[in-house]
């Protein structure tokens, strides 16, 4: 069993016990524990089930590389799935639950997959579910969905808050072990602005656990002194619990600080996402120990040797009473020594190397521990817990030499430098044959904007193994003098990729490479046999390294097995791509403060407050919020819209049109410029008049529309759609700055400088006349003209333009006067029956008039000619943006779908976006189509459904009835009609 030792534990405070629960069971740990050490101390070895076979799984590691021990942590609004217990600090009241099992952790029905494992080999997704075709949707997918996925989705809104922070430093040192501390100290002394970050809550890394002495004192003391010295430097910032998640272009480093994970509910932000710009980055990220591939290496109780040492030394937790150490290197002997020192039994050290000499093995032998040379593990005994091992010759095929009882196995296959940050932004790796590891290739570093290296890897992250090597490497690369340590000489490791070397298929089927995704040695070999020669393809075929641990333990072993199967050297196989984040970061941290009311900026018009106080039902339009309709008490949205339309048609309505884009174009060449921008001619527009214009992109497609106003000899005002103002302003600047830079033109986006109100309806003139101050008579202000003056005390520009088909004025006033004018109009209009109307009424009224709407009738593939807008396209102009594109044969084809009106035979409303079908089927066996609906509404004016659509040869087919099948099998029959449903002669607006 695993248990808490009576004494020791450098990180725990036994005077501060903490209570927590696992699957509802009460347990106790100490301040300083991780959830992993606390669980292990409470003899909870079985922590979860694997993804595919639902095999029992326990802790393997003690840090971020842990593949198995994921739990659902917290409850309610603080629940989060897939939390790694090895990186979760214990806190009072923590509540954890295991995942991926049904009905219970101890008894799992899904484990039947394990029995039938031989029928679920690598790539089984691709093989099994191909045929028959229908079976995917009806049989396979529902079953897979049921069993797929890790953890549960949180059901409540996250109770915590998150934030972004920005950091700048000459040098960011990632990793607070002795290498990182030494590097930061040297850079700090040189006066550089240094940021040192460490992912755990503690400084010092592995050195204190490994019994390192620096300058004649224990590493722990050296660490303490160094941190103190760094703390006194004004130019150095230290930050624990901060994980460098990714390194991107030009020294952009993302770091994830877990501020409040261990103190939930204390009011501080839970996580902070640091967006750091680093002059240079030092990666002192250490190394991760590799598992060994022997049969049954996934049974709970089999752990990494370094992790076993960590649990014993850091947290005084023993993973087992009787441990077998299995290794191919000297370092694992430190685990045997640490266990013995804690009074635990080491049954044997099984070393794959034929002959083992050296200081560490000698020290172990001196303790009376058996060292078995040239031996391996043939098989692990046990199911939910290790009960023993079968020993064999490493050079053989697995014949049992002896059996050793044990309840824990500490394995070490050597160490792999953590090269993620080095690799994220283009740093290359080289294979170090002597150490059997990929390490950073200093000749091919990631480069910054100056073309120079932006990362230096130091210490174990650079392939150094002993403390001496680590500190010498830091001194060599960072400057300064390396401190002396108590390192002893270590013999070279012997690469061992499977154990025993001649293992047959039965054993290989039980050798796990990827614990979380259940990928075994046999799966990778199968992939190689089936032709997956690229490591990237093998990864995807077998799912090796695709779990939430992203292959931190499995990648090197997996690609070594693949290389062996392909009979090629490991560097020839290469590695898969390292991508950020290094370990998963929370969605909350990514969102930061951007949630709820401040998810995005909200643009409000000057009259917004009035709308809110008068029943406005808002809708988002870009970042603006606009009034969809004004609801009266007890009134539904659709009734409100219909009332607003009928009132505007019969009396008078008011629309807040302030969001309309307003761009000033000014200068001696402004007219020439606008002639290029619009399909029509704007240079000839007389001062005082307005003209409707269309803008296309260079591909010929309609991009925006609006009324252009000539303000003075050299000044035009271009109205754009509400969502298009910034885009069109940028479009103008692009052409002025990059193509016609010798043209003398200025532009300005004045959208927010003006409030704009449309007053539309038979009584519109009466309302303005009552307000007084300007001549708005038919003669004084004819249609498509504008005048400037003072209206009701406000400085106004009045345009006689109509988007509703009614007698209509649009009045622009300085934004500061918008609310006053709105209120004045409401008051003046009372006796004439004025009512405000919203965007939906505007949309329906324009559709009744057959006016197009950008985004409804256009979708980026529609040219003005499709919409019968040839009248707005100049035939005289030699050029305008989009003209050349519209000359292409497909654009000029008579077979293009063209705009028409559509009217259902029974008066019902066509569904939006439905297609009109034609006879026959296309090459894919799909029904041919001949048109689609672009706008469709119920018209309260005409008391029936009206629609517009694009139909093949539409304008030539007036009166023809075509079919629109809709969801649920219903077929709408609609007649092709003129798109102008209301007042085609314009009698209503020209009065």
């Amino acid at each position, binding site marked *: 069993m695993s248990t808490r030792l009576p004494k020791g534990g450098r990180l725990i405070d036994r005077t501060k016990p903490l209570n927590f629960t696992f699957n509802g069971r009460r347990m106790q740990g100490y301040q300083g524990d991780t959830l992993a050490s606390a669980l292990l101390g409470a003899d909870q070895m079985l922590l979860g089930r694997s993804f595919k076979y639902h095999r029992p799984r326990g802790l393997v590691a003690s840090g971020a590389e842990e593949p198995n021990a994921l739990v659902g942590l917290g409850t309610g609004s603080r629940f989060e799935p897939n939390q790694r217990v090895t990186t979760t600090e214990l806190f009072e009241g923590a509540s954890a639950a295991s995942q991926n099992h049904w009905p219970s952790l101890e008894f799992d029905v899904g484990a039947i997959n394990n029995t039938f494992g031989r029928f679920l080999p690598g790539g089984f997704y691709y093989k099994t579910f191909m045929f028959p075709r229908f079976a995917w949707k009806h049989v396979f997918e529902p079953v897979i969905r049921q069993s797929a996925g890790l953890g549960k989705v949180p059901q409540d809104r996250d109770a915590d808050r998150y934030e972004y922070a920005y950091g700048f430093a000459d040098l960011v040192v990632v990793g607070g072990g002795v290498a990182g501390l030494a590097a930061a100290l040297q850079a700090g002394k040189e006066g550089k602005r240094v940021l040192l970050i460490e992912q755990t809550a503690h400084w010092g890394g592995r050195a204190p656990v490994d019994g390192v002495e620096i300058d004649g004192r224990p590493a722990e003391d050296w660490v303490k002194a160094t941190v103190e010295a760094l703390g006194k430097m004004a130019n150095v910032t230290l930050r624990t619990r901060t994980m460098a998640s990714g390194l*991107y*272009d*030009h020294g*952009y480093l993302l770091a994830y600080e877990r501020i409040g994970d261990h103190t939930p509910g204390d009011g501080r932000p839970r996580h902070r996402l640091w967006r750091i*710009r680093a002059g240079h980055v030092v990666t002192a990220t250490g190394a991760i120990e590799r598992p060994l591939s022997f049969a049954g290496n996934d049974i709970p109780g089999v752990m990494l040797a370094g992790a076993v040492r960590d649990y014993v030394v850091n947290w005084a937790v023993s993973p087992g009473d009787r441990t077998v150490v299995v290794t191919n290197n000297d370092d694992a002997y430190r685990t045997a020594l640490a266990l013995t020192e804690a009074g635990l039994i080491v049954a044997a050290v099984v070393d794959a190397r034929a002959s083992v000499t050296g200081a560490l093995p000698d020290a172990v032998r001196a303790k009376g521990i058996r060292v078995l040379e040239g031996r391996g593990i043939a098989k692990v005994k046990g199911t939910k817990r290790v009960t023993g091992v079968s020993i064999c010759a490493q050079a053989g095929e697995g014949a049992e030499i002896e059996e050793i009882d044990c309840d824990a196995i500490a394995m070490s296959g050597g160490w792999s430098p953590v090269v993620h940050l080095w690799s994220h*932004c*283009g740093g290359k790796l080289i294979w170090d044959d002597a150490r059997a590891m990929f390490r950073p290739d200093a000749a091919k570093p990631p*480069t*910054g*904007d*100056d*073309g120079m290296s932006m990362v230096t890897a130091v210490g174990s992250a650079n392939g150094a193994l002993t403390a001496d090597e680590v500190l010498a490497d830091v001194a060599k690369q960072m400057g300064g003098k390396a401190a002396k340590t108590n390192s002893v000489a270590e013999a070279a490791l012997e690469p061992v990729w499977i154990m025993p070397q001649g293992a047959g298929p039965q054993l290989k089927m039980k050798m796990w490479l990827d614990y979380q995704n259940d990928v075994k040695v046999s799966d990778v070999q199968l992939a190689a046999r089936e032709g997956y020669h690229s490591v990237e393809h093998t990864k995807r075929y077998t799912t090796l390294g695709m779990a939430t641990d992203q292959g931190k333990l499995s990648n090197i072993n997996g690609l070594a097995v693949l290389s062996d199967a392909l009979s090629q050297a490991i560097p020839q196989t290469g590695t898969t791509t390292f991508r950020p984040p290094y370990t998963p970061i929370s969605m909350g941290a990514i969102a930061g403060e951007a949630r709820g009311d401040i998810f995005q900026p909200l643009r409000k018009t000057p009259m917004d407050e009035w709308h809110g106080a008068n029943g406005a039902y808002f809708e988002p339009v870009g970042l603006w919020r606009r009034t969809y309709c004004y609801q009266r008490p007890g009134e539904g949205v659709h009734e409100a819209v219909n009332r607003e339309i009928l009132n505007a048609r019969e009396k008078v309505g008011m629309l807040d049109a302030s969001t309309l884009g307003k761009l000033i174009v000014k200068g001696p060449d402004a007219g020439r410029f606008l002639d290029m921008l619009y399909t029509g001619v704007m240079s000839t527009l007389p001062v005082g008049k307005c003209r409707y214009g269309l803008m296309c992109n*260079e*591909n010929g497609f309609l991009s925006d529309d609006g009324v252009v106003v000539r303000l003075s000899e050299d000044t035009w005002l271009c109205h754009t759609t509400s969502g298009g103002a910034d885009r069109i302003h*940028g479009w103008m*600047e*692009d052409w002025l*700055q*990059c*193509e016609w*830079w010798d043209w003398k033109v200025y532009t300005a986006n004045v959208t927010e400088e003006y409030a704009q109100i449309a007053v539309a309806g038979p009584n519109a003139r009466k309302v303005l006349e009552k307000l007084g101050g300007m001549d708005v008579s038919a003669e004084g202000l004819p249609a498509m003209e504008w005048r400037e003056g003072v209206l009701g005390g406000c400085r106004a520009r009045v345009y006689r333009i109509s988007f509703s088909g009614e007698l209509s004025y649009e009045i622009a006033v300085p934004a500061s006067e918008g609310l006053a004018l709105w209120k004045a109009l409401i008051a003046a209009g009372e006796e004439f029956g004025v009512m405000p109307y919203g965007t939906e009424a505007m949309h329906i009224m324009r559709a009744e008039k057959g006016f197009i709407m950008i985004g409804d009738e256009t979708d980026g593939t529609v040219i003005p000619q499709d919409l019968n807008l040839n009248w707005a396209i100049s035939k005289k102009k*030699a*050029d305008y943006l989009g*003209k*050349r*594109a519209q*000359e*292409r044969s497909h654009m000029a084809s008579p077979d293009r779908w063209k705009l028409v009106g559509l009217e259902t035979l029974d008066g019902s409303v066509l569904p939006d976006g439905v297609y009109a079908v034609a006879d026959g089927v296309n090459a894919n066996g799909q029904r041919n189509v001949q048109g689609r609906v672009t706008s469709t509404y119920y018209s309260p004016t005409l008391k029936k459904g009206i629609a517009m659509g694009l139909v093949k040869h539409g304008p030539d087919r007036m009166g023809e009835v075509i079919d629109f099948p809709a969801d649920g099998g219903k077929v709408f029959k609609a007649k092709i009609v003129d798109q102008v449903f209301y007042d085609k002669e314009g009698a209503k607006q020209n009065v």
Partner: protein
Amino acid sequence: MLILDCPYCGVKAEETELQAGGEAHLKRYGPGSSDEEFDGYMFMRKNPKGVHFERWRHAYGCGKWFLAARCTATLEVFGTYPAQTSAPPADLQAKIKSKRPNWEGYK
């Protein structure tokens, strides 16, 4: 997350302040051009692994469009310059040539 120096306002601008505008030094073809010319202008874009010229706008800064020469493989920035030119400045071309002797020129 590139950093580019805006040649107008002098600000060292981060990518979040910038708007990308695709390949630089395109020649516009309008009415009267052949289908091949128009096709080339509209659709054919270089995608080199190496030296590339790009349009960028300091959108959340001074608003100006400028051009940048950089290496798409190493992310090295050779220089930025105003957009009002039809060819990269001679000194910049010389600098690129010295750093990338095999570079075949911007055309």
